[in-house]
């Protein structure tokens, strides 16, 4: 059936027509929102612009391990403290969740029925209870620990109380920088040795003890240097003075609760990803490698894991992204991350909701994009290389 509207049934015309219509409607909506917003802002006496970033914040942040923060510091500094705290809990959480998830994923496939059932129960409970509830639960457990005066002592140097974990703070004296340089050099040289050994094995078939030599380089060489330089490292121990500890390094319960909840929750998802990845490697691969006489640990390291990683890495990336975004739940227990510090308190003090939320959202977007970028590079490096 042909339409009477001849020009309207022309595909090219229709495509241009619809797209202009959509763009027009969008522009109209945008114009409407901007005009009402500016009217509303003026009426409510809310300032606009970015100058508020230079104003003093006027509040304290209890947990700022990297930057010294005083209440006279600016909102801009609140932002940086928030970003660093978000990154701190995300990165430590991702590392812990990956380690725990891999272990649990492999244990879940164990031939021991009881053990694998136990992990299954853990995974189901952890996945099916809201993360926010888990964070709050961990926090409520941590703040019910004994008071500072009765704090639990672990190994004589760590104190655990409802104010958090107090541990000795390392003090680096002059000369320690040489040890650090030695460690960095050791890492670089073991990386180079690894490359050289691989090339040599490809050419001659001879193996080189890469692992033990790297361990030697990374641990023993800096350790010898450390003692030659006269141990340039001392510890400041926390001391109970009055109602609180003085000195030492303190890890607040807010951080511990966030770290535990995020890593335990995400580890449950990662363990399922790892399990699916390992199961995706066909049984023939395992049998074939056993047939050519590889040891059990080598089968896992050289045959199963490299192939499983191809399946594991893409969903693992999205778990890292989820964990980073979930770190924004710190607001529920008062962890001073980006959302709580800058998007919460600063926003309430200045009233500049649009600017604050725009900065927070843009920051999360850039963190997400950065993670995706690096994980994509890693993913490309482990995919099938056709020769």
């Amino acid at each position, binding site marked *: 059936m042909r339409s009477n509207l001849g020009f309207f049934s022309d595909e090219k015309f229709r495509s241009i027509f619809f797209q202009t219509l959509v763009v027009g409607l969008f522009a109209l909506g945008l114009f409407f929102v901007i005009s009402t917003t500016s009217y509303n802002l003026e009426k409510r006496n809310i300032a606009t612009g970015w100058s508020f970033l230079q104003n003093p914040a006027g509040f304290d942040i209890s947990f700022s391990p990297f930057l010294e923060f005083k209440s006279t510091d600016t909102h801009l500094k609140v932002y940086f403290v928030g970003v660093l705290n978000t990154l701190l809990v995300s990165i430590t959480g991702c590392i812990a969740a990956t380690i725990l998830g891999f272990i649990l994923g492999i244990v879940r496939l164990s031939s021991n029925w009881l053990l694998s059932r136990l992990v299954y129960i853990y995974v189901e409970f952890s996945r099916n209870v*809201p993360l926010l509830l888990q964070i709050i639960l961990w926090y409520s457990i941590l703040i019910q620990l004994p008071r500072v005066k009765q704090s639990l002592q672990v190994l004589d140097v760590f104190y655990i109380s409802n104010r958090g974990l107090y541990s000795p703070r390392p003090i680096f004296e002059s000369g320690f920088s040489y040890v650090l340089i030695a460690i960095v050099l050791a890492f670089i040289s073991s990386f180079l040795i690894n490359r050289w050994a691989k090339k040599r094995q490809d050419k001659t078939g001879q193996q080189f003890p890469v692992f033990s030599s790297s361990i030697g380089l990374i641990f023993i060489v800096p350790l010898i240097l450390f003692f030659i330089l006269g141990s340039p490292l001392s510890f400041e121990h926390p001391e109970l003075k009055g109602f609180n500890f003085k000195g030492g390094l303190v890890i607040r319960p807010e951080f511990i609760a966030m770290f535990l909840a995020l890593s335990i929750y995400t580890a449950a998802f990662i363990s399922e990803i790892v399990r699916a990845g390992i199961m995706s490697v066909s049984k023939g691969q395992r049998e074939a490698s056993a047939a050519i006489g590889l040891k059990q640990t080598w089968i896992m390291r050289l045959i199963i894991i490299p192939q499983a990683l191809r399946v594991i890495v893409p969903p693992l990336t999205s778990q890292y992204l989820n964990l980073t975004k979930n770190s924004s739940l710190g607001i529920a227990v008062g962890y001073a991350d980006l959302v709580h510090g800058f998007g919460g308190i600063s926003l309430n003090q200045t009233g500049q*909701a649009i600017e604050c*939320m725009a900065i927070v959202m843009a920051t999360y977007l850039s963190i997400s994009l950065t993670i995706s970028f690096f994980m994509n590079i890693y993913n490309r490096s482990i995919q099938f290389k056709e020769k």
Partner: protein
Amino acid sequence: MNEMNEVRKPPVATTGIIGWLRINLFFNWTNSLITLFVIYCLYQFIPWILDWTIFSADFKYNYLGEQITNQEMCSRNLDPENGGACWAVIYVRFYQFIYGFYPKVEVWRVNVAYVMLALALLPLLYAKLPYRKYFLYFTYIFPVIAYFLLNGGLGFTEVSTNKWGGLLVTLVLGCTGIALAFPIGIMLALGRRSKLPVISMMCTLFIEFIRGVPLITLLFFGMVMLPLFLPEGIDMDGLVRVLVAVTLFQSAYMAEVIRGGLQAIPPGQYEAAKSLGMSYWRMNLLIILPQAIRISIPPIVNTSIGLFKDTTLVIIVGILDLLGIGRGTLADTNWLGLSYEIYFFVSLVFFIFTFGMSRYSLYLEKKLKTGINMGAD
């Protein structure tokens, strides 16, 4: 040797319970040691947890036989040596956990809505339901009925949403979020795959933006920014503002899931539909979407589980869902210090819903694997 050999039974060690135990629990030395260690841990843990949750726990009365009305009367606060959990707090506050602060005289309306919700879900969950078509009509009009029933109007007295709470809010947010996000997600998925560059770019930007930021920032957006965007006089309800944020969030995730389904449709389906002279919308509505949605049902259920858990985030912007009521109860001096009981109960409720949904998704996955034959006929 033509003579039939006597049929011998397999060795006892490989069959039956003993065989199962040998293979699964005591295969070799390390395996046996692990088994014994796990059994020892369970032996330490299980009696303790059973004792705390059931045998030493108070349900309504404490060990003196008094009815518990505050935390001081809990057995474990009277006698720390013997008492277990104090479930009386759940018993006393049960109404709030389920209905929030909904007026008691009107609460039958919520109950009717709960029953109707179950009826409306029935044809969606169970494909072989007799008279499914008529049940589906009911499902379509259920949101309208539920709106008037819960909110008021049409002869019902109005109950403002700040009186809603507990499971009611959790279910309203979860169900409405999922139901609204579904059509929006389909439109976004179609838009992202559209041949029109402007539309595809706009949909892609929207989806990637929403997926790149945490839900909590969207909730803040709904709470503090949305009122600034709207002209004066339009005062949006707090629950509605949260719903907008939740729906936007969920629709982006839903769109990606449905896009995955759309990508799995073989191009022959599009070509066949076009060769029959179908328009874009007829092709999508009649040919492509029914197939695409059917294969993406399991991941749709999975993102819905995610949303259901994420509805707890609304407590941060001051809406009292199940977890919010729990925290409110804890802040009450009468029930101070009963956090384990309350969080245990709230976790259990969420677990029942989400675990049920995940089992359902597994069941669907199995059914779909054997059921349909994609694109072969």
